[in-house]
């Protein structure tokens, strides 16, 4: 089996100025008065793991444990501070769907732009625009500006666009379904199809029931470090015992 993700000793920290105002003036003043202190905030500590093709790995942990930061690293939005992280293949982040939607553009233009942001080929997308809109149930509004859409419509369009192509690696931050009623059911079904289709999935969720259902393996993060890794039932049981 080939590794899709390989992390070795991954640390992630960012620097925080003890002074919160970020202006040149205060920085200069504090510098003269020797008041500037830079503190390192370590969000992830020494993570080593690998994920093989087709696996579904869930990341659980309390708020602030570093789950979302780890997803950002896997999405290759930020590089690790030290350590090595290799991610192979196309990555589709389902993190805050619709980041990149522009209210001034039409539904059609937004589908194309969002897909281009996700690294897809525009020609292929153009041929699929109608189908994407149809699946989201917004065909009538396709050529209106996005600001005329209801928030439910925007969420449906974002979900439909994001899941239109199955990537090699799917990163999910709590987005397992959108909308209400029929669409919630439909989107959940599509999500489960994608997850079980052989795509590698990294899933961040607080919903332990879903995690137990979908994941092959669970990583438990606490204060940025790996507390436990293993099969879902064991890790979830230990996590619940600790009061999570």
């Amino acid at each position, binding site marked *: 089996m080939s590794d899709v993700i390989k992390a070795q000793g991954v640390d992630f920290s960012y620097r925080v100025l003890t002074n919160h105002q970020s202006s040149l003036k205060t*920085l200069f003043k504090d510098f003269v008065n020797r008041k500037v202190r830079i503190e390192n905030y370590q969000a992830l500590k020494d993570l080593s793991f690998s994920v093989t093709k087709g696996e579904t790995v869930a990341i659980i942990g309390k708020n602030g444990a570093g789950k979302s930061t780890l997803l*950002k690293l896997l999405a290759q*939005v930020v590089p690790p501070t030290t350590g090595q992280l290799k991610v192979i293949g196309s990555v589709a*982040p389902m993190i805050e769907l619709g980041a990149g939607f522009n209210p001034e553009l039409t539904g059609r233009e937004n589908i194309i*732009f969002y897909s281009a*942001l996700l*690294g*897809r080929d525009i020609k292929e997308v153009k041929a699929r625009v109608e189908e994407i809109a149809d699946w989201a149930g917004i065909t009538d509004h396709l050529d209106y500006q996005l600001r005329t859409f209801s928030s439910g419509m925007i969420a449906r369009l974002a979900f439909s666009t994001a899941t239109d192509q199955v990537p090699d690696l799917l990163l999910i931050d709590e987005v397992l379904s959108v909308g209400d009623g029929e669409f919630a059911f439909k989107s959940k079904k599509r999500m489960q199809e994608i997850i079980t289709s052989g795509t590698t999935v990294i899933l961040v969720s607080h919903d332990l029931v879903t995690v137990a259902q979908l994941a092959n393996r669970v990583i438990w993060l606490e204060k940025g470090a790996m507390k436990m890794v293993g099969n879902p039932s064991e890790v979830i049981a230990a996590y619940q015992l600790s009061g999570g």
Partner: protein
Amino acid sequence: MRAKKLSLSSLTGFSKNNLQLLRLLVQQELTLRYKRSVIGIGWTLLNPMLTSFVLWIVFSFLFAGKLQAGQQFAPYLMAGILLSTFFNQGLLQAANSIAANGGILTKVAVPPKIFAFAASLAAYTNFLIGLIPLALVVYISGQSLSINLPIVFIMGFFLALFVAGIGLALSVIFIRFDDAKNIINVLLLILIYLTPVFYPLSILSEQMQRLVNLNPLTSYLDIFRWSFSGNAIASVGDFIYLAVTGIFFFVIGNYIFKRYWPRTVSML
């Protein structure tokens, strides 16, 4: 060993799909700006003409007679305005583009530079559209277009590099320090006044002339005016300065961005 195929994507490090995205962003930048106005993209044509007209009323009394024989003040002025707009707008938009698209950059893995390049290229495209009314003004004032016209495109290319480079370097500074924008605005104003946009170089003292000639924008502008309608003199030195500053600032801007971006992205 097989030679690597030389293509746009191998030169920039962008994938083919990234280049498609770049084109999409330039299109968006051009259409969105005027989307809600009645005459739409027509503003791109009208705006430099109106600005030039106002300045022409003010300055033609002062400077029109000071130009060298054969040069005309109206196209001289308008060329200056087009180029300074290209520089100013392109630079500020490139510098802002990274912060403005922070929501995207913290969630999707797109090369962040793409937004700054798009802003620079959009300013270049706007500039090219502005050449149409400029050509009109050239004919109205009794001049004709020069056969060196194609050089304008090369000048624009180097200015786009210059703008993208400085814009990238500024973009990380803008994210880190809120008040950097105000300081840069003042510096930009000084730089524009040190460019012969609306005055002829000859009205300045020799000392000031030397200072103005040090400004790379002066070389860009001289080359632009010379190659469009023979409205200035461009020396070999100007061409060397153009190429050197364009490439230098592009490389240095990319370097600064690459160095500081990993630390800056967590501030978005």
